[in-house]
């Protein structure tokens, strides 16, 4: 065991949350050390154009993702099943390496709605307590949209988000999302250039009575210089956002927005290939003293720190708490305990559309598209539908990569000359429209440690117990119907709906939006961290990321992950450092 000199702040993981926290906390003069299990990554080297636009290497062979032969999860639908380990990546792709999953995201940069943060109380208020199913364990976040707005705003301006505001300080703006929470400022950049599909979807959505607007994109529509002085290029619509790093300095990631400044700071350091395996507490169990990590050679290290921030991928945050014995593990039988509770995901469906027009879908960007948000969250009356939640409907033109994103009719042959004919006929004139729905929390959907399987470090695997529930299936089918109406109004050659499967399958890719397990709240009986993401039981430990979401909203999570990270960083700077101790009295 190699024992290192203590650092003021130790960050576990070096992705989106960690780089924001490091950038903010180094401003106080503290010495900050990030421990990242993967390798270093730079725009000019690892993401150099045109090497990076290699679908086989990145999207098929998964170069930027977690390696399941080192660590993975096991899975089962319910407690009656035996869990089995995922030996290949499936329905989600956690990142590894500097920048984490914020390197390979699309850039779909959302704010959750005011309604989402107070979901339980607003639902009870509008529809009565009986509207919430007995096994649904949704709760309020303990933080409101209004409190997070300055941090959403700051994160927008760090990332150079392109978009059209729909609500500026309460005034509804033409062309934006009329349902969104009030913004204090417009988007830093105007929307991306519209492609033909966006125009067609926009027209059709208006025709059926919806309110379409350009998707908020962490893909720059113009050159940009952010608040830290970091420069970004304008997106070239190369179509390789998802699963790829951006070589053009135009998709927001730690590399393109923070690291050029952060890595120059003498009070910051990052150790790569340092896989954290445990957080060590002192004898009282109320103070974190160090973390253990394993380097590339398999040697074990101990890194002490005064303040320890767990800021890895959501599921890893929960895993690390469980293997370190921090917080009471959740017990689904009694409903007691908190760590692993309220694991949620995302409920998605799609409609394939085959147009008469040539869409040139290879010209795209990860967040290029038009959106309908009429059926999200609290934007419509749920009373007559009998479900909670909702989602957005989108025409994303992300680039139609040739291997993985070929849209051909569902009844076309899967191989041979028939497949080739279908591909030739439809590649330029086929697309897939999406619904992106919320995922509620349930008593029987949770994370714990697998009793049988272990990772390469000897820790038990994280076990995911999860299935879709009636409420979310109803919600998703409702969204699919709304989307089908828009698809029909586009007057295509043909269309085909792909509704959500009745049971969740962890095999086909859906979204990398795993949430919960170390949720935030105002009550230590039902949350792991307080409203500042500080661990109730161990005040010098913060747990930051989508693991804090009490349930998942109908949006992509990264905008909220960024805002929560800045919110936590501010609480640490302005309050915790002055008086280290619990920021909220239990």
């Amino acid at each position, binding site marked *: 065991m190699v024992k290192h000199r203590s650092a003021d702040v130790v960050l576990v993981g070096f992705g989106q949350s960690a780089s924001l926290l490091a950038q903010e906390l180094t401003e106080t003069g503290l010495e900050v050390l990030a421990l990242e299990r993967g390798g270093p990554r730079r*725009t*000019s*080297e690892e993401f*150099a*154009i*045109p*090497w990076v636009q290699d679908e086989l290497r990145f999207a098929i062979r998964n170069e930027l993702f977690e390696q399941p032969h080192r660590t993975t999860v096991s899975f089962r639908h319910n407690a009656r099943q035996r869990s089995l380990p995922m030996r290949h990546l499936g329905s989600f792709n956690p990142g590894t390496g500097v920048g984490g999953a914020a390197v390979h995201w699309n850039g779909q940069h959302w704010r959750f709605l005011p309604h989402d943060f107070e979901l339980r109380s607003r639902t009870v208020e509008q529809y009565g307590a009986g509207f919430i199913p007995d096994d649904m364990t949704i709760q309020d976040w303990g933080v409101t949209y209004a409190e997070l707005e300055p941090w959403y705003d700051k994160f927008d301006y760090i990332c150079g988000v392109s978009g059209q505001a729909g609500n500026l300080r309460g005034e509804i703006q033409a062309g934006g999302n009329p349902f969104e929470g009030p913004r204090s400022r417009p988007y830093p950049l105007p929307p991306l250039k519209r492609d033909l599909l966006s125009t067609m979807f926009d027209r059709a959505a208006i025709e059926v009575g919806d309110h379409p607007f350009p998707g908020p994109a962490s893909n720059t529509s113009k*050159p940009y*210089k952010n608040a*830290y*002085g*970091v*420069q*970004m*290029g*304008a997106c*070239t619509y*190369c179509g390789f956002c998802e699963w790829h790093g951006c*070589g*053009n*300095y135009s998709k927001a990631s730690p590399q393109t927005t923070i690291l*050029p*400044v952060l890595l*120059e*700071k*003498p*009070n910051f350091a990052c150790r790569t290939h340092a896989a954290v395996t445990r957080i060590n507490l002192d004898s009282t169990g109320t103070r974190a003293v160090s973390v253990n990590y394993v380097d590339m050679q398999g040697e074990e290290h101990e890194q002490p720190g005064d303040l320890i921030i767990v800021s890895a991928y959501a599921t890893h945050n929960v895993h690390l708490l469980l293997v370190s014995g921090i917080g009471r593990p959740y017990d689904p039988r009694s409903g007691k305990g908190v760590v692993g509770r309220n694991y949620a995901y995302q409920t998605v469906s799609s409609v394939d559309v085959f147009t008469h027009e040539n869409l040139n879908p290879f010209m795209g960007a990860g967040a290029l598209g038009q959106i309908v948000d009429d059926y999200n969250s609290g934007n419509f009356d749920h009373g007559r539908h009998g479900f909670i939640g909702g989602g957005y409907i989108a025409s994303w033109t992300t680039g139609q990569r040739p291997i993985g994103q070929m849209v051909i009719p569902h009844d076309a042959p899967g191989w041979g000359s028939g497949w080739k004919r279908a591909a030739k006929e439809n590649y330029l004139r086929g697309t897939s429209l999406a619904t992106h729905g919320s995922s509620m929390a349930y008593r029987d959907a949770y994370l714990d440690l697998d009793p049988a399987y272990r990772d390469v470090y000897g820790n038990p695997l994280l076990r995911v117990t999860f299935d879709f529930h009636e409420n979310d299936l109803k919600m998703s089918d409702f969204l699919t119907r709304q989307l089908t109406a828009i698809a029909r109004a586009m007057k295509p050659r043909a269309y085909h709906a792909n509704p959500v499967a009745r049971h969740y399958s962890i095999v086909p890719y859906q979204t990398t939006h795993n949430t919960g397990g170390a949720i935030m709240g105002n009550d230590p009986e039902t949350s792991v961290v307080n409203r500042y993401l500080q661990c109730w039981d161990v005040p010098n430990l913060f747990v930051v990321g989508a693991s804090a979401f009490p349930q998942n909203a109908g949006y992509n999570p990264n905008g909220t992950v960024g805002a929560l990270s800045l919110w936590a960083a501010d609480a640490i700077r302005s309050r915790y450092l002055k008086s280290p101790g619990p920021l909220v009295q239990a």
Partner: protein
Amino acid sequence: MRGRYIVALAVLTAGAFICPAAGSRPRLDSWAQNARGRYLVIVGDCAACHTTEWGEPFAGDKPVPTPFGTVYSANITPDEETGIGAWTDAEFLRAMRHGISADGSRLYPAFPYPWFTRVTREDLLAIRAYLDTLEPVHSVERENELAWPMSWRFLVSGWNLLYLDSGAFEPDPELTAEQNRGAYLVQGPGHCGACHTPKSWMGGPQRDQAYAGNALQNWFAAKLDGDETSGLGAWSEQDIVEYLRTGSNGFAFAGGLMQEVVEKSTSRMRQSDLEAIAAYLKTLPPGEDTGGDGDDTAVAAAEQFPEGHRVYVDNCIGCHGYEGEGLPDVFPPLDGRATVLSPNATSLIHAVLRGISEASTEARPTRIRMPGFAWKLSDEQVAAVVNYVRNAWGNHASTVDASAVAEIREATSAG
């Protein structure tokens, strides 16, 4: 905390100039003199040659490539045995002015004493005083790798007869005080001519062609004279200041060897000194006309260099634009830019083959990098695209052939 460092430096150096000049003997407690020396060491970019990557500051041992072989830089920390700790001030002054080491041996002019000879005695002693405050580092001396007859140090005295014009800087009565300050910095501590002035076959500066540009280490140090297209004629003083302070302006960004000069030296210099340098450089007349602003030959260029046009469209327009217009503040334009129109295309070929990084400065921290294309473009294709961009849009410059590309490919190959 680069920001804090710069502020601290500014305070220190401001102090240096309101204090009276220190005595002739450097004293370790002479705060103002040390601060002045520290600033001059930045102006002189001493670290560029005397600090190796990951090495102790100023402990030398950095290989400095010359056309005659490799010279290893000296340890200039105050170590008594392997550094310059045992040197007297007189010995230090003699080394800086005449290129003679404490033991009487000749220093090779890779050490830019032909420029430091212009530095005033006060400034040289301030540099010495600052170097005396460094942590002494005991280093291992390395033999230079020079081909005969250059390995005979005594021959340098003959070289000095031909090329060393010793003597401190004399202000030019025709110039303003600011221009003279700039001239002092450029000709003295900044030793700009060490790279930017053409060299004779013996490596001696051709002072009659001062700042007309010079090829070294497979780059071409640009013309700094008043030439409208390939020099600084089209740049305002503000443009020069912006380039030196941030590493980039609308015309060019600091890549190649200049990247390090901007990062370690000019971006950390005082604004008034950058303005003085700009004021002086703008007094330089245009040299020999080597490039030209032609008519709008876009069509002609595409016709004249069809292969170059194809290579350009396939590889370059994503960042530099179809019309060579670039992307403001991010990717440099190629139309009418000095690097593109330089009489010598070495830097352009080098950048296309191996890529090029801009400097990272406080104002522009990102260090945007163009990737290299050596792996995918043949010598013929590189020559074609270089000829195309040098003659497309409003550009007009001489052409290169594939053998010139092959030479640079060979010389810059890592393997």
